């Protein structure tokens, strides 16, 4: 039986029980005056009910309504730090921020845990232990940059990074300066080419779809290729990835010797792992959340309070994060997707075809990365 085979009803049931137990434990932590974050303790006081007594399992989280990401704008940032972790060093990761105050999320160890779990899914044959990495993605106050570096270090390598400011890129796009945009992308690729040419024996890289297009073309125009540059494993994410792009990347940019691993994640949720991309499955990109630490559900497009339960049906992505560091109940993402069934490797629902939510698609700006 392969990992992608359908999960048994027992496995699905067991996973659901584990999730319920994890929910109870997480709620206890976040709503106990000794361990909880000031934000949630204050929330419970205003709500007038005690989640520790009333939340018995995952389904009960509906009582929280929907997490509003606007709550994450502005300070004081310490209100999000659970008292039980107050003595630990705290990172803050930001999203957006082209104009106005960005949304920020505190992190202590979550990004390391997420990426260590992801590391278990990367094949050593193409992501060799001890190999050095290139991080070809956004820099600055973002989770991705530190997380990829940690992934590389966790696997025993050294990670080379570059400068890429996505906020500047979005400003350039918004004023329609396409020539400038192209120059900036070239500047990013120049940095990658310099690192790859410097004798660092880089075998693996994180890259966004657009930057993989650009890097492969630059290498090939100089008579090289991703493979000839020594890369054997490409871990791709950060922006929307279509099945057509995945097929194009595998068939034309990477070739059969380079492994393409996909991920779907964000600062709030963490990281969803993709099943292996296969030609026979039409390069379908299928993600499962790292349950029980995070859960992905789909909400009906016409009735957001109704969950999608039919496999193959489209819905808006709704995320729940359940770690000791951060509690995010039922947050509506800016994406939509189709529901996928549980499988042996992940005995809970997954999603495929992730793309910008139709109501936001026209206003979403995706830049050079």
């Amino acid at each position, binding site marked *: 039986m392969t990992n992608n085979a359908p999960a048994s009803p027992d496995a699905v049931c067991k996973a659901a029980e584990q999730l319920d137990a994890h929910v109870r434990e997480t709620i206890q932590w976040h709503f106990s005056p000794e361990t909880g974050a000031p934000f949630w303790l204050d929330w419970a006081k205003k709500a007038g009910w005690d989640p520790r007594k009333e939340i018995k399992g995952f389904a009960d989280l509906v009582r929280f309504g929907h997490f509003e990401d606007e709550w994450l704008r502005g300070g004081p940032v310490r209100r999000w730090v659970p008292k039980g972790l107050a003595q630990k060093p705290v990172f803050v990761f930001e999203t957006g921020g082209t104009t106005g105050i960005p949304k920020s999320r505190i992190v202590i160890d979550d990004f390391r845990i997420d990426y260590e779990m992801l590391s278990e899914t990367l094949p050593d044959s193409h992501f060799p232990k001890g190999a050095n990495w290139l991080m070809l993605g956004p820099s600055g106050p973002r989770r991705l940059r530190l997380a990829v570096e940690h992934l590389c270090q966790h696997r025993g390598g050294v990670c080379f990074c570059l400068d890429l400011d996505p906020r500047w890129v979005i400003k350039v796009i918004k004023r*329609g300066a*396409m020539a400038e945009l192209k120059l900036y992308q070239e500047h990013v690729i120049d940095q990658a080419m310099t690192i790859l040419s410097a004798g660092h024996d880089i075998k693996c890289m994180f890259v966004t*779809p657009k930057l993989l297009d*650009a890097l492969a073309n630059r290498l090939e125009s100089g008579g090289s290729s991703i493979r000839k540059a020594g890369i054997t494993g490409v871990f791709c994410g950060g922006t929307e990835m*279509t*099945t*057509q*792009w995945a097929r*194009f990347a595998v068939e034309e940019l990477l070739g059969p010797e380079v492994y393409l691993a996909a991920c779907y994640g964000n600062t709030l949720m963490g990281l969803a792992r993709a099943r292996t991309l296969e030609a026979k499955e*039409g390069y379908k990109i299928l993600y499962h959340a790292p349950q029980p630490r995070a859960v992905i559900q789909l909400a009906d497009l016409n009735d957001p309070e109704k969950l999608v339960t039919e496999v193959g049906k489209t819905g808006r992505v709704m995320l729940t994060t359940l770690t000791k560091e951060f509690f995010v109940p039922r947050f509506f993402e800016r994406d939509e997707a189709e529901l996928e069934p549980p499988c042996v490797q992940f005995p809970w629902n997954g999603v495929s075809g992730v793309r910008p939510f139709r109501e936001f698609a026209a206003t979403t700006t995706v830049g050079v990365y």
Partner: protein
Amino acid sequence: MDDKDTMIHFPILRWGEPYKSLEVDKVYHHATGELMAEVSQANAGLIERDMRQAKRAREVLREIPCKELLAMCRKAGDLFMTATLPAGDGTQTPDEFVRCQSATTGLPEHMSRMNMTKLHYVLSNLEAILSSLTRGLDFEILTRGYGMENGVMRSYQANTPVLGMVLPSNSPGVHGLWLPIIPLQIGLVLKPGPQEPWTPWRMAQAFFQAGVPKQAIAIYPGAAEVGAAVLAHCPRTLIFGSTATVERYHGNPNVQVHGPGFSKILLGDDEVDQWEKHLDLMATSIAINSGRGCINCSGVWASRHTKEIAEALAKRLGPIAPLPPSDPKAALAAFTVKGQAEGIDKDIEAALKEPGVEEVTAKYRGGERLVKMERCDYVRPTIIHCESPDTAAAKKEYMFPFATVVKCPQDQMLAKIGPTLVASAITKDEKFRRALLDARNIDRLNVGAIPTVQLNWLQPHEGSIVDFLYRARAFQEPAAAAGTR
């Protein structure tokens, strides 16, 4: 065509080679909701990658003398008009083509046929069109890069091996603009409009059957990022878009933008008292092709009688109502993009709030301007009278039979009309005529009673396509070397 097995699928054409994408867009009948076609969607990276072979597109065309390419184009015109040609993975007769194009663009079928005839005319007369645009240049000089003409050395260098095009869905007649490219030995990179995959595909197939090498033509249907990739990776691009698009690429020598035309009829003081003589010309210029073209008139300017002119036009055009697309009398095209017609209607209502701006059509219409159907909408002809050229409404243009009739003294007209693709100036006044000839805000100038929609294809349209694709330069070689050639 509602049967999944027989429905047309349009693949991407990568230098003539079909490529079926894993992402498809579905194109529906605007009135019945019938699924008409599935269109493979390119990803942007595909274009960047394929453009590495752009040079080959020109090379294969340069192997064929221009005269032969012109003959191929003539044949392609006949095939486009009369033959059953491949359509995606099936075939299509000319009648099927008309029905499909009408179904997805909302254009009445007889207008689709009219546009086919227009394209056939261009292809049949390409030699004369190119001779005119190159002022009789020996085409061999373009192929070779240089040559003697009337005892003078002429040299022309191609600015690009291919011309990229981001095409619209609204008016199939615009395809006439890119038909002269192949005999100029420049390859084609086409991004079709989402509702109009039909013409680029059929035209490419007609070219192939007529002998044009497949490696010379690429078609990349797709989302906005595909259009951006065509712009980014083709050294010369011709695009169609809104005023915002025009402004974005203003001054960019690599991009020729075809935006709203804001075409106008200007009645000189010497002719305006006889305005009734020109009513047919005005109505035709406003309403033909359902007012969708950039050459349709969106403004009639005169110093007096403007209320009477508006009244007469409103009486003529106001009663026009939607008819089924197959009806030969159908004069209105449907809006197939959700919300577009409603947006136009709201914009007009907002414009009417300004003092001195009055709609004249309402009383002749017998109903609302906006006609909402189950799956598409119509906007019925609208004539607005503007008491002054300074009203915001005076410079409006929409994609349906719409025009303002603007009261403006003749001596202020040229300063106030703004950018104008076609100006038909009805005047015999020498002074006004001179001023019109000097007005740099007018592209195509008709002096006399000529409808704005009457194109002379032997003349340049928004700049000569030849000048856009080739640059004249100096070239010398020793006389002895020249003698050996």
